[in-house]
């Protein structure tokens, strides 16, 4: 079987500025993978390239064995129903209610009747841990945590096999953040989803992540389980993982 996500020597340049010089990694099996790196290390750019919103300068990115740059529009459309994206601030359509937001991909990509779509919307809200009453609310009426869950429900709408999450716990309080982590873990284990998340949250790494990929200096600095990456001797990785130790020492 072709790897779920395959990234081969990707290079990205904006003008004179090299974001990625040589980035390669492969994700073969359903697991929770975290992409970390300092500000400006190109995590978000890489995520946008994987989901096909940006084009790398060189190199190939393949999802389910299909190169994004070499697929025709029909194939790309089909490919896009097989992954879901949770944007950092939810990116819910502000003109639509939560239920209609979740129903958008179902209405656009399938010919299912409204009755079934309604049932699926209810299931998606349940899966992302939202009470059914949320369905008729507008995105502006939701708290940050609820908005993320509603956006997750929309990302799950088309039964994706891969879920991309951009900073899923940013802007959430620690209790909500940990609950969201658990939800991600449950979805990965229960539904066999592959989850690639961009994060800054050390607790997420310690709590639910199977594998960490560290981006920096335009390449992959480290790749492996959290404990192995923690032990890598690199200045940025050392200071990243000691950030919380420093906090504890200062008593803050």
């Amino acid at each position, binding site marked *: 079987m072709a790897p779920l996500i395959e990234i081969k020597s990707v290079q990205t340049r904006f003008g004179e500025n090299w974001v990625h010089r040589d980035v390669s990694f492969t994700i073969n099996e359903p697991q929770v993978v975290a992409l970390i790196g300092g500000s400006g290390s190109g995590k978000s750019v890489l995520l946008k390239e994987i989901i096909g919103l940006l084009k790398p300068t060189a190199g190939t990115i393949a999802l389910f064995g299909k190169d994004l740059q070499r697929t025709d529009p029909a194939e790309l459309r089909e490919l896009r129903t097989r992954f879901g994206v949770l944007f950092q601030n939810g990116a819910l359509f*502000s003109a639509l209610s939560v*239920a209609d937001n979740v129903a958008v991909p179902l209405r656009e990509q399938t010919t*299912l009747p409204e009755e*079934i779509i309604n049932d699926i919307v209810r299931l998606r809200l*349940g899966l992302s841990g939202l009470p*059914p009453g949320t369905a008729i609310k*507008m995105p*502006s009426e939701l708290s940050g945590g609820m908005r993320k869950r509603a956006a997750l429900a929309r990302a799950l709408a088309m039964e994706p096999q891969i879920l991309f999450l951009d900073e899923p716990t940013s802007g959430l309080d620690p209790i909500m953040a940990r609950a969201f982590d658990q939800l991600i873990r449950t979805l990965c284990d*229960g539904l066999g989803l592959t989850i690639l998340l961009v994060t800054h949250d050390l607790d997420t790494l310690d709590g639910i992540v199977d594998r960490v990929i560290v981006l920096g200096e335009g390449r992959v600095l480290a790749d492996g389980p959290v404990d192995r990456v923690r032990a890598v001797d690199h200045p940025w990785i050392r200071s990243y993982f000691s950030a919380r130790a420093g906090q504890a020492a200062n008593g803050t």
Partner: protein
Amino acid sequence: MSFWSVDSKGNGVVVRFFDRWELSQLQEIRTAGKARTQGAGAVTLDFTELRALDTAGAMELLNVIGWPQLPEKIEVQGGDPRFQSILKIVRERLSADEKVGVHVSHSFLAQLGEVTVNLGKGIAALVNFLGQSVMGFLSVLSRPHSFRIKEFFVQLQTTCVDAVPICSLVTFLIGIVIAYLYASQMQQFGANIFIVEAVSIAMCRELSPLIVAIIVAGRSGSAYTAQIGTMKLNEEIDAIYTMGLSPMQVLVLPRVLALIISMPLLVFVGDFVGTLGGAAIADLFLEITPQTFIERLHTVFKLKHMVIGLIKAPVFAAFIGVIGCRMGLSVENNARSVGLNTTSTVVQSVVAVILLNAVFAVVCNELGY
């Protein structure tokens, strides 16, 4: 082709599932109806021949065996172990509440009431804001150094200088149209020469102020709402308050004053260019040379026509500016609201301008101007 079959076994039933239970198959599965499991003591779900199951399929599977009144005892046998975990998570998280995605629709009467109340609130808020703007202006008069002179000139550039080409083009074309209209009628009476007062008075007194006001409402009023609205979304307005400044002083006054200065200038340009358009048509179709046109203009055109037009302009401008800024500041915390308010600004401004124009017409007539 069937997606399941039911066999009885002892005091319970065995439901065998076949084929793929996936989102894409959902409609076909649903048309097949429900399995009869009611009253059965125990239900065994046989997944041996099930080839695929996703969450939507699992939801339908629960529906088939009687959700939300599921049999007490459910056993699963065979199949991919993942199917069981998917079924488990869906069963835990599927809500029994049927009422989801209800569209709330209001009756005509309720809508009429809502619109009326909103209209009343809108007018009250506009009057309130107008008052605040005047107070802000007075406080700037007492402390002139607090006026944002730089912002004022930036706005003057965009609302006045940058608007000259479009205003000229539109008023020129309107001048031509008016001249055509009169030319075709007046030729019949041999009253060609009257085109001079027709075009010049119509342009200077009514058309130029009105047309320029509509252009300015669409160009600058909407831009004010969009700019200030986006700033509000971005919490920049909150930042202004936190620094001890007021949006009235920083954003509203420079914009409104810039508009009040710009409008008469633009209207003057419109007066000139519109009359020029009329003169061009008079020369081409009525054999009135530019020289004759200007001579006639000197004798028949009274300054009061132009003055009335130029007095209207700053009043229109004040309303357009105040409406634009108010709608910008009343943007709610979502992207859609910016679009709605921008539309509303243009509609309100144009209606206000036409209403004011009517008031001016009545007042001038009563005063004998």
